């Protein structure tokens, strides 16, 4: 049973600079990386394949254009997950991919997955957009069942047993393969690859394919606004007693006590 792990090239939102005064968002300058929760999905894929003796492959469809910088980052992100133990990676990239919405991307990914894999693992949400739409759409495109928010996965023959965490209860479900499962950050602790594994990862198969959206997207981003959050950012100094005293005073003046 071969496993595909969906790894998104995510903007590093921690590093993304926005200007609250001009409303400018410096997307081009921000680095991209494999999302943190995708490392959890990778870890789970590696654990499962070690038990089952099958292959696990990363599939990335980049939506940040195909500039040299983005290509290099995409390959670095894939090297990172390959070093964790995946067997290979597919990178789909091209100019114009930025316009693809989840409808378009899901259809393109399904082409890559249909007939080749029986289990697709993804993150509950990507690091930059966090919509969780893509794995759900991919499942629908493939006609496979979809279970989100997995905190444990066990393979039992042609089924997987998935424990998942919802707001008001925890659920254990049995899902018939092939299936798409998205995982949470709590499912495991992603291993940190050693230097030799990173060196070896660079020699693993990385298959790059060209991409241009085959379908028209169903939505268009009109604008991106920067929400204004004004904070005073006053650091209160002094010894413990003084600081506590000054803080209480300030909060009284704010009228929030």
């Amino acid at each position, binding site marked *: 049973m071969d496993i595909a792990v969906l790894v998104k090239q995510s903007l590093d939102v921690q590093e993304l600079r926005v200007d609250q005064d001009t409303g400018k968002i410096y997307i081009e300058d921000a680095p991209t990386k494999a999302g943190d929760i995708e490392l959890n999905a990778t870890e789970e894929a590696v654990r499962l394949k070690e038990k089952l003796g099958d292959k696990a492959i990363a599939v990335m469809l980049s939506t940040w254009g195909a500039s040299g910088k983005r290509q290099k980052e995409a390959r670095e992100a894939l090297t990172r997950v390959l070093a964790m133990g995946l067997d290979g990676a597919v990178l789909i990239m091209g100019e114009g991919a930025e316009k693809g919405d989840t409808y378009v991307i899901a259809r393109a990914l399904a082409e890559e997955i249909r007939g080749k894999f029986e289990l697709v693992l993804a993150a509950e949400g990507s*690091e930059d957009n966090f919509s969780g739409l893509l794995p759900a759409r991919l499942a629908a495109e493939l006609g496979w069942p*979809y279970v989100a928010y997995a905190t444990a996965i066990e393979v039992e023959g042609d089924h997987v047993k998935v424990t998942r965490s919802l707001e008001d209860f925890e*659920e254990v*479900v049995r899902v018939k393969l092939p299936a798409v499962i998205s995982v949470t950050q709590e499912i495991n602790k992603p291993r940190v690859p050693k230097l030799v594994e990173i060196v070896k990862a660079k020699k693993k198969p990385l298959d790059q394919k060209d991409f241009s959206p085959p379908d028209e997207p169903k939505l268009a981003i009109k604008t991106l606004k920067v929400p204004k959050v004004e904070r005073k950012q*006053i650091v209160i100094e002094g010894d413990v007693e003084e600081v506590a005293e000054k803080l209480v005073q300030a909060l009284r003046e704010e009228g929030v006590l």
Partner: protein
Amino acid sequence: MRVLAFSHYVDLALELISAGKGLGEVSLIVTSDQEGRIGEIRGADEILLCKELDSGDQEGLVELISGLGSEYDVVLLAGDRRGRELVGQVAHRIGASSAVDVSSLSAEDGKLVIERMTFGGKAVAVEELNLPAVISVQKGKFKPLEEGEPSVREISAPSIDRRIEVLERKEKPKVGVPLDKAEIVVAVGRGFKKKEDLKLAYELAEVLGGVVGATRPLAADLKWMEEEVWIGISGVRIAPKLLIVVGASGQQQFAAGIMDSKVVVAVNTDPKAPIFEQADYGVVMDLYEFLPVLTKKLRELKGG
């Protein structure tokens, strides 16, 4: 426009009706387990009661909503985990556009224009969606309507070949005061070294008459809180008048959940922690030293 709505939670369904009425006529799907609460439903034009389907049946729901959905312009679902799980599947099945956690929506020139948070809360995307559209609505953004008794029509559930079987369902303990409604919140992070130490935060919350919330690792990973309720982009977004963040770094995904707070105080040993940029008042100190003193001062103030 014709709007179809569904939520696993009747309380959220009421918010969806309110969001949907701004667009047009609203039909709400009610499942067998929700039938007892039909009397509370106001504002919808019509209730589609499906007695053959339980809301715990994800595949059945996808089939039912996708089947009905093609007759509507917009399908509204809720922003909870199970609601979000449906959005992409239903949208794809009916060939619709989609968006999640939508904070505002309006019809413009035959399209649906929506706003939602993106980039971990650093930006708000304004998007134009082709119809039909399937979206989830951010919790707490729309006030339930008080007027309008809907008509009730019974519908049957489509039969399907099920591939997901629920083996077990364990309820989690219920939340006391919901964080998103609290006036004062003390938010705790991994700066606390053991679960027992959270007592310092609970004592502070108690003198303030507030509640304790947490960062995701503390609640979901370490499970130090009674229930898995954390603040942030993947958890609850809060809007208290006073928020005291203790021992949390203020990573973007957490920060996205606290933007609507009125006054923010941060306590952290690391002067470079990003939380200080999101705070009105910063205290660069060990929480173990600072919290007991602050609690004592507040107690004196409240007592006298």
